[in-house]
């Protein structure tokens, strides 16, 4: 009996990370193609509340896995529990959202299960035992369809490529799973978490993103002001994160966050391929750059060749006036 298992993720504040709902939607799609039930795993000190939250999202079974060792996430505590659960329910597909946690955890789970893995999956193809995973390579310059040849298959999904699961339908059955003793003997210990606090929406979840690049020369005031007028998240190119002008967490690109908002405004960003890899799935792209040859204009729906310090306040005033 084939089973698809998706690992849910809690934020440091204990709330469900929204990307989990995108992973649940991906899991449903895969489960349907394979002809298997969808199960979820919730690992936490006290997973009951998260399991309750997830109950109406269409999974057949939610497995709660409780341990004091799960107070803070480390792969060496979580991986043995996920692998033991996957083995006990006979899961042949194990996945999660491609968040920092998912990207850290799933390969370690896959290693335990001797499973091959596909990262940042954007779609599933085929059916039954002949499933293919679509995923970007070379910073999205290539879209590859891959097959995993091992009996158990692991994956992470790119949250922006799957619409979040909607509640409704029969509630999931909740079952408690006793984790193995190994979860309490992690060789890695959590020390501290230095959170970048922001009143703005999370970059990967925002419907509008305003990003700044080298053209800002580190002055993000106008970027932030426009973002706040629009209720948008703030992003950045690699160069400005490297320079320490803005937190690393702002970086959009191949090695940063992948975003696909309905509107992406790139101000003073030249558009290196590594940056484009992180935002070219956006519905509408606006480029503001003084250099008419900047590659960002090749992907922009609307481009304006001008100084961002002139354009951004004017655009903000126009938006404000129309409210």
């Amino acid at each position, binding site marked *: 009996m084939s089973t698809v298992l998706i690992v849910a993720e809690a934020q440091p504040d204990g709330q469900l990370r929204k990307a989990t709902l995108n992973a649940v939607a991906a899991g449903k799609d895969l489960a349907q193609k394979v002809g298997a039930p969808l199960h979820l795993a919730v690992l936490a000190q006290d997973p009951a509340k998260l399991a309750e939250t997830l109950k109406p999202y269409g999974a057949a079974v939610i497995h709660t896995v409780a341990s004091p060792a799960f107070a803070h996430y*480390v792969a060496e505590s979580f991986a043995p529990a996920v692998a033991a659960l996957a083995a006990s329910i006979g899961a042949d597909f194990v996945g999660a959202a491609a968040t920092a946690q998912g990207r850290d955890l799933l390969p370690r789970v896959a290693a335990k299960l001797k499973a091959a893995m596909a990262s940042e999956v954007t779609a599933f193809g085929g059916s039954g035992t002949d499933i293919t995973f679509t995923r970007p390579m070379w910073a999205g310059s290539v879209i590859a369809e891959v097959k995993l*040849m091992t009996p158990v298959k692991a994956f992470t999904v790119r949250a922006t490529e799957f619409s979040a699961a909607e509640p409704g339908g029969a509630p999931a059955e909740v079952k408690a799973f006793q984790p193995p003793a190994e979860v309490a003997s992690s060789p890695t210990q959590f020390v501290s978490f230095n959170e970048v606090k922001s009143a703005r929406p999370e970059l990967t979840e925002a419907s509008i993103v305003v990003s700044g690049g080298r053209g800002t020369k580190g002055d993000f005031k106008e970027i932030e002001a426009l973002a706040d007028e629009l209720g948008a998240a703030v992003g950045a190119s690699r160069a400005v994160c490297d*320079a320490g002008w803005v937190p690393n967490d702002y970086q959009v690109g191949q090695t940063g966050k992948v975003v696909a908002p*309905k509107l992406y405004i790139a101000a003073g960003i030249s558009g290196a391929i590594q940056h484009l890899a992180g935002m070219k799935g956006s519905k509408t792209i606006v480029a503001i750059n003084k250099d008419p040859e900047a590659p960002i204009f090749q992907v922009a729906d609307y481009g304006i060749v001008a100084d961002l310090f002139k354009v951004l306040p004017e655009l903000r005033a126009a*938006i404000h006036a129309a409210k």
Partner: protein
Amino acid sequence: MKILVTAKRVEDPESKIKVKTDGSGIVQEGLKYKINPFDEIAVEEGLRLAAKHGGEVVVVSIGPKEVQEQLRHALAMGATKAVWVNHAGALDPMSAAALLKGVIEREKPDLAILGKQSIDDDQSQTGQYLAEWLGWSQGTFASKVESLESDAEKAKTPAIQIAADGKSAQVVREVDNGLATVSVKLPAVVTTDLRLNLPRYASLPGIMKAKSKPIEELTPAALGVDATPQVEVVKMSAPPPRKAGIKVGDVQELFTKLKNEAKVI
């Protein structure tokens, strides 16, 4: 301390990657190759740790004889010796991890530092497979609190903090919404994120010295590893192009387009 680092050979990140018309792979003609940028950061961190704590840096690469260029690059940066795992054909993260495990069991380093991902496959898995199969701690996506323009960076201070007793190390990890600090038990696997350091340039004396440094050759068979890939690429294609956009004359026109045409504000 003994530090093992990796040096995968990848397409130059500045090259334009094109897919072959039959979808069987990418067009190789005209491409330049480099050390994976994340691996170069791993080499740099290894050199900084060795400079601070004493010891040696062993660099490993897996692939055909051309990967010796990347090994020589790491040797020119200052690595002590190189191990070349002579392997032709496709390599997936499981095989890479199995081969690296074999090398690590021979070399017995205190720390293995790998790039967090290679810029060709973009899988970001090898370090985690390796850590699990060795039964080691993992500190993935290693970064640091200080910026790349800080004094600590200019002084080439290693970001990975080795404990005084040498039994553990602190790693600052780049995660969603901030930085997480973990203590890993040594030996451990660390994978490098972008802002761990700025790799040094190889000096001319470094390049000259690298020519006489040893490169040990191993094979998957000698390591007892079956390197048959378990990730099989069935087909490659180019991403769908975005339709051509327009340039607008002024902010008012931009605002009108966004409001009435794209309907996004």
